[in-house]
C-alpha cells in the first residue's frame, strides 16, 4: 500500500498545511505595504549578515582609528567619523547586527514564555489559570520602560540582561492574545471529539490548540520585534547597554555624550537613527500585513 494513494494522515496534514500556507502567502502578497516592508527587511538583514565581509571588525577599534575627530563626510569616510575617528558608516553597519540580534532574541524569548503561559492557562484554567491571568495583567499595566530601567540599574549591564529584561516586559501581550484564542478553540466541537477519543492534555494542547494559535502568534511576534528594538535603543542611549558592544543605541549614546549635537555633527546622528527607524518601520509594515491576513476581525480592512 502506498502512502500517497491512500493519503496517510501525515500526508494529508502536510498537503493541507501547504495549501493553507500558499493561501496565506497569496493574501499577504496582495498587500502592497506589506510587500514593501518585506523587501526593506530583506535588504537590511542581508546587509547585516554581509557586514563582516564588507568591513573588517578592526574598523570598530578605537586605537586603530585613522580618521579625524568628528570629521564631516569625505571620500574616504562617506558618512564622516565619530569622536575617536572611526567611520560612522562602519559603526552603523556593525551596529545593525547587534540591534537585530537583541530585538529578535528578546522577542523569541517573550513569545515562547507568552505562548506557553497563554495556552496552559487557557487550557488548564482553575487556580493556575487565574493566577497566570492576574500576573500577566499586572505585568501589562506596569510601565515597561520604567521596569526595564529599574531592573538594568540593579542587575548590571550586559547583552544577556538587556535581552532578559526586554523579554520580561514584553511577554504579557502574547499571553493575553494566546489565552483568548485558546479559549475560542477550546469550545470548538473537534476538541470535544479529541477529548472523547481519549486525548490527554498534552496532545490537545500541542496537536490541536497550538497549530490554531501559531498564525496569530507569528503576527504579534512581528509587531513585538520593533518595540523590542526601540526599547533596546532607548536603554542603550540612556547608557544602560552592554558597554563592550556597538549597537545603534550605544552609537547615539556616545554621540550625545560627546556633544555631537552642539558640534552640528549631523552625519554622526542621522545614520544610526535612520537605521532604527527603517528597521522598525519594515517590521511594522510586515506585522500589520500579517495581522490582516491572520486576524479574521481585520480581514477586509486595508
Amino acid at each position: 500500500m502506498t502512502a500517497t494513494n491512500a493519503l496517510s494522515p501525515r500526508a494529508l496534514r502536510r498537503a493541507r498545511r501547504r495549501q493553507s500556507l500558499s493561501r496565506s502567502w497569496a493574501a499577504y502578497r496582495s498587500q502592497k505595504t506589506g510587500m514593501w516592508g518585506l523587501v526593506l527587511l530583506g535588504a537590511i538583514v542581508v546587509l547585516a549578515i554581509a557586514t563582516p565581509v564588507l568591513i573588517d571588525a578592526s574598523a570598530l577599534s578605537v586605537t586603530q582609528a585613522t580618521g579625524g575627530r568628528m570629521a564631516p563626510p569625505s571620500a574616504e569616510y562617506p558618512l564622516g567619523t565619530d569622536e575617536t575617528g572611526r567611520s560612522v558608516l562602519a559603526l552603523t553597519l556593525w551596529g545593525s547586527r547587534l540591534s537585530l540580534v537583541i530585538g529578535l532574541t528578546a522577542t523569541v524569548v517573550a513569545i515562547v514564555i507568552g505562548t506557553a503561559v497563554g495556552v496552559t492557562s487557557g487550557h488548564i484554567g482553575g487556580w493556575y489559570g487565574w493566577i497566570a491571568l492576574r500576573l500577566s495583567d499586572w505585568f501589562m499595566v506596569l510601565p515597561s520602560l520604567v521596569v526595564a530601567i529599574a531592573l538594568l540599574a540593579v542587575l548590571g549591564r550586559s547583552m544577556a540582561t538587556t535581552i532578559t529584561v526586554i523579554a520580561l516586559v514584553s511577554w504579557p501581550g502574547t499571553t493575553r492574545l494566546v489565552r483568548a484564542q485558546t479559549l475560542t478553540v477550546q469550545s470548538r466541537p473537534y476538541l470535544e471529539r479529541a477529548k472523547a477519543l481519549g486525548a490527554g492534555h498534552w496532545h490537545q494542547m500541542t496537536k490541536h490548540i497550538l497549530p490554531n494559535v501559531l498564525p496569530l502568534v507569528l503576527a504579534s511576534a512581528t509587531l513585538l520585534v520593533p518595540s523590542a528594538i526601540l526599547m533596546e535603543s532607548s536603554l542603550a542611549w540612556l547608557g544602560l547597554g552592554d558597554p563592550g558592544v556597538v549597537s545603534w543605541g550605544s552609537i547615539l549614546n556616545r554621540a550625545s555624550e560627546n556633544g555631537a549635537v552642539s558640534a552640528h555633527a549631523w552625519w554622526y546622528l542621522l545614520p544610526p537613527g535612520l537605521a532604527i527607524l527603517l528597521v522598525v518601520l519594515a517590521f511594522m509594515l510586515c506585522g500589520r500585513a500579517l495581522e490582516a491576513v491572520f486576524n479574521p476581525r481585520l480581514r477586509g480592512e486595508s
Partner: protein
Amino acid sequence: MTDAPPPADGASTEAPSAGRAQSRRSPRDVNEHGERRVSSGFGRYLLKHAGGAAVSLLLVLFSSFFIFRLIAGDPIDQLTKERPVSPEQRAAMRAELGLDQPLWQQFWDYIAGTLTMDLGESFQYRRPIFDLIVERLPATLLLSGTGMVLAVVLGFWIGTRSGWKQGSRFDRGHVATGLVLYSAPTFWLGMIVILVFARYLGLFPVNGMRSPSTPPDFWSQAVDIGYHLVLPVLTYTAVVYAGYLMIMRSSILDEIGSDYLTTARAKGLRDDEVRQKHAVPNALLPTVTLVFLALGSVVNGSIVTETVFSWPGLGTLFVNSIFYPDRPVLQALFVLFSSSTILAVLCAEILYWFIDPRIRRS
C-alpha cells in the same frame, strides 16, 4: 515609541465573574418591592476593581523591595565607592539606614514609610525624596500633559477623517506619516529637533525649562517656560499621536458599515453631519477609555523626552539617579510610576461603568 501610552489591551478588563455574582445575589439586594437595587451593582463592580488595584499596588511595593533591597546588594558598598571606611563607620551607616534590622522588620518599615509618604532621603541631594518629587512633578505634568492633550486632539481629528475616507490620499498620507513618526526613536527625534530648530535655526532654546535672566514676574516667567516647552512638546506629540490616530481610525472603520449610518443618510443628512453626529460618538466609546488608560503615562511617559531636553522633571531625576546610583530615589520613583498607571487603569474601569451600559447589564 518608548514614550507611547501603555498598550490598549489593559482596557479590556472583562467582567467574567459577573454571571456568577448574579447567581450568588442574596435576598438583601432585593428591596421590599422586589426590585433589584441598582447601586449594589456599581458597589460590587467598584469593590472588585478597587480590590484588584490594591493587590497590584501591594505587589508593586513588594517587588520594589525585592528588586532594590535584595537583588541590588548592599547599598553601603555603593555609598562608600571610593572612600576607605572603618568597620565602625560601616556599622554606624547600616544602623542609620536601618539595615541592621531583620529583613521582615526592614520590609515592614518600608511599607509603613511608603504609605505615610515618608520615602526616605536621597543619596545625591541629601534631602527628603518626597520634597524632590513635589518639586519636580509640575514640570513633568506640564510637559506630558500638554503633549498628551495635543496628541489626543490631533490623533482623533486626523483618525476620524482618515477612517471616514479610507484609501483616500488624505488617509494614505496621514497613515504613512504617522507610522514613520511612530517608528522613530524618541530620543533620536529629540536630538534631530534640537539640531534643526535650536542649533541651526536658533529659533528655540536648546534645553532646560527657564533662562536665568528672565525677570521674576509671573508673565515673563510663563512666556519663558512656554518658549522652552515648544520643542519637547513637539517631540513628545510627534511620537505619541500616531497611536491615537490608528485607534480612532480603526474605531471609525468598525462603525462605517453600520445600518444606523445608512438610516442617517437616508434622512437626508449631509456627509459631515452623519460623521460628526452619528459615527463619531459611537466610535469614541472604545477610544475614550484608552485615553484614561494612558493618563498614567502623564506621570511616567516622558522619561526619554525629558532626558533629551534636560527638562527638570521626574524622568530626568529617574535617569540621573541610575548612575549616581541613588537607590532610594529609584525605588520611590519606580513605585510612583507604577502606581500611577495602576490608578489610571482603575479610573478607566470606573469610567467604563458610566459610559458603557453593556457592563451594567451583565
